[in-house]
């Protein structure tokens, strides 16, 4: 197989799909993280009574929400790694094989 130029590979449908999917996933997950964190900050800024309302006993709604932001952020990184390990790496391999490298 002849070695392809960077330009040819970039024009390749498979590479385009790979880049597009990766950008889309990164963008969606980044926006989700921003919404979660700044949503939390907005709740604190604009709706303290909601966060202060009691859930059970003395526990306020704010506690599981705060802990939830931490846990959910981690879950998002897990979703990304899972996608990348299962799908992205295979697409990368395919493109690499095409190049003949």
């Amino acid at each position, binding site marked *: 197989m002849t070695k392809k130029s*960077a*330009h040819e*590979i*970039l024009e390749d449908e498979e*590479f385009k799909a*790979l*880049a597009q999917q*990766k950008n889309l*996933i*990164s963008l969606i*997950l*980044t926006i989700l*993280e*921003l919404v*979660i*964190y*700044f949503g*939390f*900050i*907005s709740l*604190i*800024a*604009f709706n*303290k009574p909601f*966060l*202060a309302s009691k859930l*059970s*006993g*003395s*526990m*306020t709604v*704010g*506690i599981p929400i*705060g*802990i939830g*932001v*931490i*846990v959910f*952020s*981690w879950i*998002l*990184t*897990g979703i*990304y*790694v899972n996608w*990348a*390990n299962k799908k992205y*790496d295979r697409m*990368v391999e395919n*493109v*690499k094989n095409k*190049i003949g*490298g």
Partner: protein
Amino acid sequence: MQTVIGQTNPVAIFFFLLFVAVTLAITYWAAKRTRTTKEFYAAGRNITGFQNGLALAGDYMSAASFLGIAGLVSTKGYDGLIYSVGWLVGWPIIMFLIAEPLRNLGKYTFADVVAYRLSQRPIRSAAALGSIITVLTYLTAQMVGAGTLVKLMFGLPYEVAVVIVGCLMIAYVLFGGMLATTWVQIIKAVLLLGGATLLVILTLAQFGFSYGELFNQAAQKYGDKFLEPGGLVTNPVDAFSLGLALMFGTAGLPHILMRFYTVPNAKEARKSVFYATGFIGYFYILTFTIGFGAAILVGQDIIKGIDKGGNMAAPLLAEVLGGNIFLGFLAAVAFATILAVVAGLTLAGASALSHDLYVGVIRKGVSAEKEEVKVAKIATLILGVTAIFLGIIFKGQNVAFMVGLAFAVAASANFPALFMSIVWKRFTTKGAVASIITGLVLATVLIILSPTVWVDVFKNPAPVFPLKNPGLISMAAAFIVGIIVSLATRETQAEAKFEEEKLRTYVGIGAE
């Protein structure tokens, strides 16, 4: 209650000496494996994703976040949780936008990536400046914290503590390079996570392993307000600005970014962010619990009586629950934590000096292996001595703003240029330099005029700039200036190289 905090504690000294002995032995072992630049800066790229995840967590979980956040929770309750959440949310951003391209494109520093297509010398000068300012401000805050904490916990004089910390960190980095630094981080992370976990188990045992009971007793003692958001977020714009600085600053910290070069490929880089985020998130949940435990079992009066900022909440709780031995252990862990963080920072600063400034700018990119390692070691010495010096001259000063400044500079000078260089074809050398300088100058000037420095440090009645952290303004300005200047200039060479860069970003062909 009677406390031995502030006195010379033999148990703490024993555990600390044990840690020093083990880490110096590792440094000796690593020294034999630290001859090339790849070994000195990047541990030979042989660290696994899991190990790097622990090391990243070790770099990020400073003594300030352990003692400081536990203290904040114990004195302010729920607000402490709000604060700690902000420190975690940058990690997913690193994962989604930075980690893999950084690993695929660069060699040792993040400036490698920014300079990939652009003119080496101007970019490396500007990026090194951003790195060094970030490292020095963060390092000063750590050194001053180290002196104060060691004085509180071991009864050692401030200056002695700063010199001990400085000499040990120089030894790790100078002889053992990234390999020794990485293992110091890993050991520290395991000790810190283990110690905090044990403290949480002992705490929860007092409440029948029920968080409900823990919260009930906290509310009984300090009122319902303790479990509600209080005064931390009053001005939403202020909170957004700080949030942005924390989020994108994390993704622009040179010592964190540098760690991604220690793993063999982008796949391990991404795995390491997943592990790091998990460890750090878990750690913040632990410190939240420790803060509540300390508020109930030690009491705010005693905590504030020993240190107004509440920094001794976690050690005091350890003393109540596990006696002198556990206190000694935890004090040694806190000391180890400081050491590991400053070692990581010193290495990142030294790399900016040697790899970016000396080789990239002065030697125009041409330098023999041996020469670069030698220069990197000299840079380590210079930086280490500077850190000791800064630690001593800032004794007793309010340096809390320095961490805020480090994050503001990282978010404004480092992150925008790094991000735009990866994704934008039309980004030019002039655009990048303008963006870095704008972010750097604006973040620094605005934080001086902000309430954090203008009012809290200089004691002026009113701030010139209203926001406590300038992140919102300085980061936006860095992006806008970078875009405008790039559009106003044209760099066909850089554009021509974009396709090759793009291929490498996504597929990793040619990655080192």
